């Protein structure tokens, strides 16, 4: 496979309507991975402070998941109809165009290698339309990781039926593909995203017969100070609530979908009431007809690229692993900054503030000048800290209770890729002594499929964390973050190229070079 760094540059440039001289700007001062709110804010801020910047994203246009929107070919006149706070994105997009940032879209980053102090190589795959897949290397003096998050899923009987889709997945398919999974869509799970998803679905013409939330929203009121500091969050919530009210969708809290029914596709769901630990209460089941179910239980920071490098992580209030960062957004590896949901899930406003802070810190380090007046830096940090406090309150409220595993039957597939049922994972624990996700995985293949455990990892660690397989939430929290040497599937040919002497890039990052041990938790930030 040819090393096509320069081709890829030209392609990316051409698709954006401007030509870029190949390689002329490498190494870039800063490479930003992820073009969502955090990455965009970071890239434009860095460019406006004189850094040369490359911005990589697997999508074909900027926006990330939050500002996902239809492809230009759909010629959507009102993309903002499916978005809250579109002007913030429009502003970033305009500044991106003006700022001379090298945009490398359709670039799937699979690993980042640290060659030396101030010398990083990003390895990505790209496939220009109608062309072959190419491998691409991008060199940079510093990295800003803004890879966001992905949805947490708690399995339940019937969740592999067609028509059962991730809540974020339904939202993504609607925002970019302008399609719905069905006409009558139950929305279920936990977390503020559900409000947004249900709001978008009804606005786009679907019927939402039930919006089922496992936690109780009333717990927000236990954090009045964090809540009061968040007028923008409240407006966003009100924006969705208004759409729901107009369509008579009332959130049903302390309930969960405990089964999906159907043969070749979902036809109905069973909704049960939950006690405060998320145990389904027998006798409360109710059946709701639907032709689709959009389900999700919050978001998990996407930190594979950083954990593969050995970055320190911290435990979030809802039991996921996030990157441990300095007050100026730097990871435990010097020169690797991070912003957005990689350090905890807090929404677009927080992500943009963090992206700006990280870029200012990187610019200061690389240029040796203070890039922004101190009062501005201080106020950025203050608002980020306020939003962090609110995000923590939300995370506590929506953290899955330990009782959810009760709705799993032994036949329920936990791992969708390898089709491993809950009974096999339970057996690995009770019969063979598995005590964590890793040993359960080795014994059952759960998490060894295509998605590398992204979908089932959290559920498997819950099942494996206690000998009686009725784990406590704290049990699920003790497992180490997942390590994935490759953040995206890579053809063997690409790996072979890296080690062949002819094609030797600056330094190959074979998986064996990666730190052998999981990073330490809770390293001071």
């Amino acid at each position, binding site marked *: 496979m040819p090393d096509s760094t320069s081709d890829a540059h030209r392609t990316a440039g051409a698709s954006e309507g401007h030509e870029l001289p190949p390689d002329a700007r490498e190494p870039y001062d800063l490479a930003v991975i992820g073009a969502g709110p955090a990455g965009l804010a970071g890239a434009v801020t860095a460019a406006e402070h004189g850094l040369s910047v490359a911005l990589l994203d697997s999508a074909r246009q900027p926006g990330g998941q939050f500002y996902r929107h239809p492809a230009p070919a759909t010629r959507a006149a009102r993309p903002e109809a499916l978005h809250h706070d579109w002007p913030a994105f429009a502003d970033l997009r305009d500044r991106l165009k003006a700022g001379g940032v090298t945009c490398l879209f359709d670039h799937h980053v699979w690993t980042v290698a640290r060659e030396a102090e101030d010398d990083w190589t990003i390895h990505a795959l790209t496939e220009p339309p109608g062309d072959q897949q190419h491998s691409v290397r991008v060199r940079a003096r510093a990295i800003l990781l803004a890879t966001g998050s*992905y949805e947490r899923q708690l399995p339940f009987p019937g969740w592999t039926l067609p028509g059962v889709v991730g809540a*974020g997945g339904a939202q993504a398919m609607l925002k970019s593909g302008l399609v719905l999974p069905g006409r009558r869509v139950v929305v279920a799970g936990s977390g503020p995203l559900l409000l947004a998803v249900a709001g978008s679905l009804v606005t786009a013409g679907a019927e939402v017969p039930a919006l089922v939330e496992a936690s109780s929203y009333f717990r927000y009121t236990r954090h009045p100070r964090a809540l009061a500091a968040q007028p923008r969050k409240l407006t966003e919530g009100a924006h969705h609530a208004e759409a729901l009210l107009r369509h008579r969708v009332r959130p049903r809290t302390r309930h969960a979908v405990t089964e999906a029914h159907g043969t070749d596709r979902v036809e109905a769901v069973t909704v049960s009431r939950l006690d405060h630990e998320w145990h389904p209460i027998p006798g409360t089941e109710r059946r709701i007809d639907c032709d689709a179910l959009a389900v999700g239980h919050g978001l998990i920071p996407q930190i594979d690229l950083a954990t593969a490098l050995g970055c320190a992580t911290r435990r979030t209030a809802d039991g996921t692993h996030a990157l441990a960062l300095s007050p100026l957004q730097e990871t435990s590896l010097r020169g690797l900054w991070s912003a957005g949901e990689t350090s905890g899930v807090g929404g677009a406003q927080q992500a943009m503030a963090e992206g700006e802070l990280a870029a200012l810190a990187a610019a200061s380090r690389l240029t040796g000048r203070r890039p922004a007046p101190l009062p501005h830096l201080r106020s950025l940090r203050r608002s980020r800290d306020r939003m962090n406090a609110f995000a923590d309150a939300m995370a506590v409220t929506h953290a899955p209770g330990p009782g959810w595993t009760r709705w799993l039957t032994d036949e329920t597939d936990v791992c969708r890729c390898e089709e491993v049922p809950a009974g096999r994972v339970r057996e690995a624990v009770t019969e063979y002594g598995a005590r964590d996700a890793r040993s359960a995985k080795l014994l059952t293949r759960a998490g060894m499929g295509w998605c590398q455990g992204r979908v089932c990892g959290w559920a498997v660690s819950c099942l494996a964390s206690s000998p009686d397989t009725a784990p406590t939430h704290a049990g699920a929290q003790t497992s180490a973050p997942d390590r994935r040497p490759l953040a995206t599937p890579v053809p063997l040919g690409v790996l072979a190229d890296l080690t062949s002497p002819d094609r030797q890039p600056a330094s190959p990052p074979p998986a064996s070079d990666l730190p052998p041990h999981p990073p330490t938790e809770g390293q001071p930030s």
Partner: protein
Amino acid sequence: MKPTDLVGATPGPPFTITFDGRRLDALPGQSIAAVLWAAGILSWRITRGGGRPRGAFCGIGQCHDCLATVNGRPNRRACLVTARPGDTVTTQEGNGHAGFDE
């Protein structure tokens, strides 16, 4: 209200792709998964172990449930691949290489 009306989409004329021999209308810019959903098709893969139907789940390239065979190439993530005129999509059975083993 249809989603396309909501955002005021005025794409160029639809083109067709085929799915297991059936002709489907596609809008420029849509992913293959979106074209299938628009036609009411929710599954286009049969699992290796249980022989169960699957389609798009995460919608963003993470879960690999949406794997399809596109123009003879197996294991393409339908949620990421943009549909192009004349694309031939077929249901993927198992790991997509069954044909080569026989």
